[in-house]
C-alpha cells in the first residue's frame, strides 16, 4: 500500500495541554476516510497540522514522502463555508484561479493552460454557468462546490475537506458526497467532521478522533470506539442498510 500521508507519534500542545496525543495514522492512495470527533477533539488542530499551519511538538509527518512544507502542495484544501465576508468583491472564476497559485507562478500571470484547468474544474463541479458571478451571491452548497473546484484546480493528489456539509441542507449534502465519490476514483479524500450522520454511506473508512485517534482501516465503528471518542454512550441509529454504521447484531 502506498502511504500518501503518514503521521507517526504526533503530539501537539497549547501550553501544557496536549491537544493531540500520540497520533499514528496512515492514509493510503485512493482512501476515502472520514475523521469524526466531538467539538474540542482536536479536529481543526489536526487539520492545521496537516497543512503546516501548526508545528507539532514532536513526531513525524510526511505527505507524498515530503515534509509538510513541501508536501502540502499536493493537498487540495477545502475549507468550511461558514466564515465568510459576503461583500468581498471576487468572482467565482477568480476564486477557482487561486488553485493555480504556486511559488513558480509568482511574477507570472495565469496562462492558457491555467484557464483551461479552471474551466475544466468548474465543469467538473457543475458550476461553470456561475463562473462570472460574485461569490457572495452563491448559496452555501454552491460555494462548497466552488471551493472544491479551487482545490481541484491545483491538481492535487489528496483532497482535504473541513466539515464539507456544515450548514448545507441534506439534499445538497448528498449531491456533494456523490461528487466526492466520483472524484475518489482518482483522488485520495480525507474529510473531517463533527457530524456522525454526515459521514454517510459514501466514505470507505472511518477514524475517530478525541485527542487520540482510533483507526482500523475499515468502516465499522464499534460502540467501544464511539464511547472512547465521545466519552459517553451514544445510541447509534441506523436508517436502513445504506446508512448502517454498526454491524448487524445476531442476537
Amino acid at each position, binding site marked *: 500500500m502506498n502511504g500518501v500521508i503518514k503521521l507517526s507519534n504526533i503530539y501537539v500542545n497549547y501550553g501544557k495541554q496536549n491537544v493531540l496525543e500520540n497520533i499514528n495514522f496512515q492514509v493510503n492512495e485512493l482512501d476515502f476516510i472520514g475523521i469524526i470527533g466531538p467539538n474540542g477533539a482536536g479536529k481543526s488542530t489536526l487539520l492545521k497540522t496537516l497543512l503546516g499551519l501548526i508545528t507539532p511538538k514532536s513526531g513525524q509527518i510526511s505527505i507524498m514522502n515530503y515534509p509538510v*512544507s513541501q508536501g502540502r502542495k499536493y493537498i487540495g484544501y477545502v475549507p468550511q463555508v461558514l466564515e465568510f465576508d459576503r*461583500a468581498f468583491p471576487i468572482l467565482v472564476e477568480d476564486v477557482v484561479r487561486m488553485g493555480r497559485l*504556486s511559488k513558480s507562478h509568482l511574477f507570472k500571470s495565469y496562462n492558457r493552460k491555467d484557464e483551461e484547468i479552471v474551466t475544466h474544474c468548474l465543469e467538473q463541479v457543475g458550476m461553470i454557468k456561475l463562473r462570472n458571478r460574485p461569490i457572495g451571491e452563491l448559496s452555501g452548497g454552491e460555494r462548497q462546490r466552488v471551493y472544491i473546484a479551487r482545490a481541484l484546480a491545483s491538481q492535487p493528489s489528496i483532497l482535504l475537506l473541513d466539515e464539507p456539509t456544515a450548514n448545507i441542507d441534506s439534499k445538497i449534502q448528498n449531491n456533494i458526497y456523490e461528487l466526492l465519490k466520483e472524484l475518489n476514483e482518482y483522488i485520495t479524500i480525507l474529510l473531517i467532521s463533527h457530524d456522525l450522520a454526515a459521514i454517510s454511506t459514501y466514505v470507505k473508512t472511518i477514524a475517530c478522533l478525541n485527542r487520540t485517534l482510533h483507526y482500523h482501516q475499515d468502516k465499522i465503528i464499534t460502540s467501544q470506539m464511539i464511547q472512547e471518542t465521545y466519552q459517553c454512550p451514544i445510541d447509534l441509529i441506523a436508517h436502513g442498510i445504506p446508512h448502517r454504521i454498526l454491524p448487524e447484531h445476531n442476537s
Partner: protein
Amino acid sequence: MIEVLQLEFMQNAIAAGILVSIACGIIGTFVVVNRIVFISGGIAHSAYGGIGLGYFLGFNPILGAMIFAVFSGLGMGLVEKYTKERTDTIIGTMWAIGMGIGIILIDLTKGYKANLMSYLFGSILAVPRSDLLIMLILDVIIIIMIWLFYKELLAISFDPIFATTRNIPVNGLYLMLISAIALTIVMVMQVVGLIMVIALLTIPPAVANQFVGEIKQMMVLSSILGVIFILIGLGLSYTFNLTSGATIIVVSGFAYFLSLGIKSRFR
C-alpha cells in the same frame, strides 16, 4: 471660478488630489477587504512621532513620518502574524506612543514651529511642486506592486490559509502590503491630515464596494470617486472659506451614507 484654476497653488492642489486618489483607491481597497482599518489608523497616528523627529533633528518631517509609519506598520503586522498577543491592544498602544513621542519631540524643539497643524488637519492648498513628484513616484511604485502581485494579494486577502497551502509567501506579501499602506497614509496625510486619513483611505472603496463585484473594478471606481470627493470638497472649501481637509472628508462621508441609502433602496 475659472480664474482660480490658473493659480499655481490651486493647480498643485488638484494634481495632489488626483495623485492621492489613485493611491487611496488601490491601497484603500485592500485596507477595506482585509479589514485592517484599525491598523491603518494606528499607522497614521504613530507617524506623528516621525514628524516630531524631523522637527527635532532638523530634517524633512515627511521623511520622518514615512520611517515611523513603515516601522510601526511592520511592527503591528509582525505582532499580528507571528504572536498570539491581542493585536488591537498593541495597535492602540503604538498609536498613542507614536503621538506622544511626536508631541514631546516638538516640545523639545526650539524656535518657531510653522505649519504643524497642517500635518494634523492637512493642507492640500499648500502642497509644493516637490511633494507632487514624491506622490507621483509613490503612485508608480504602488501600481507596479499591484501589477506584479495582483493575484497573490487577492488570494491572501480572500483566504490566507488557502494561500499558505499553495506555498506562496503570505506573510511577506502581507508585510509588503502594510508598507505600501504606510507610505500611502503619509502621502494622504498632506491632503487631509493624519486625523482624517482613514476616511479618505476607506470611504471611496467602501462606496465602490456597494456597486461592483470585483477588486479591479473596485480599485478603479474608488480612485475616480476619490478624485470627485476631493474636487467637490476643494471647491466648497474655496467658495465658503472652510478648512479644505475637513470639507473633503465631510463630502466623502455624506457620499458614503448616500450610497448606503441608494444600495438598500435597490435591494
